[in-house]
């Protein structure tokens, strides 16, 4: 039950951000923007799934991934925009929009993962250096 509440809150926040962003940016770039943003965040969070689960509590992670990232990105509006392009017989634009969304989406998941790994590595290196310093000073 608590899981559901976390997902609900995350989804509510995500949807609100999506709504506000896509209202302010010219169509269809708003949807593209929120989708890529969500992919990046999900990439970051996915690093925490197995090894580094201790950094983020499981329930909070669920709220952020299933709730927030799922809520901030949308597949239905994306499909509808493609549908509108096709209806207007703008086939090249439709194809371009699909390809750009897919490639950038996958790329930004990857960027998110690498970004998070880099940050964690820096964090751990820092910690290690501090420990070494303390150890040397102790001697």
């Amino acid at each position, binding site marked *: 039950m608590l899981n559901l509440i976390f997902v609900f809150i995350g989804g*509510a926040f995500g949807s*609100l951000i999506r709504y506000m962003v896509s209202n302010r940016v010219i169509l269809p770039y708003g949807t593209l923007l929120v989708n890529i943003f969500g*992919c990046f965040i999900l990439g970051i969070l996915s690093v925490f799934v197995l090894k580094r689960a201790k950094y983020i509590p499981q329930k909070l992670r669920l709220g952020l991934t299933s709730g927030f990232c*799922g809520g901030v990105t949308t*597949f239905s509006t994306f*499909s509808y925009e*493609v*549908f509108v392009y096709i209806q207007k017989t703008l086939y090249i634009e439709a194809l371009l929009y699909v390809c750009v969304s897919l490639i950038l989406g996958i790329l930004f998941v990857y960027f998110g993962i690498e970004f998070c790994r880099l940050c964690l590595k820096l964090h751990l290196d820092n910690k290690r250096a501090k420990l070494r310093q303390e150890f040397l000073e102790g001697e």
Partner: protein
Amino acid sequence: MLLVCVGGGLGAVARYLLSGVINKKCHPWGTFVVNVLGCIVFGICIKFFLLNYINSQFKIFLLSGFCGGVTTFSTFSSETAHLLLGNKSEIKIGLQYLIASILIGLLGISIGYFLPNVFS
């Protein structure tokens, strides 16, 4: 704004429950199912809005809130990325998943969009 929040929250919970159940049996098709269902509902709603059956506040609740919340692009991308860039044996599933999601999603929108025509 409150409408978007409530709709998005409900959508996210619905997605979490439904895709969780299906993903346990056959990964990654749970996300596929919620995305297609969301597309069908989206198509119906936008048609109803264009026909003036529902007002713009209800439209915001359903489209920006619920449908946007129930469907997800981020999980879709990350699953595709893992399938395509991960194990070589999974590339085929990844491509199937990718193409099916796009095409059936579009089909879902069209079905939803043209369904009200059949009854009126």
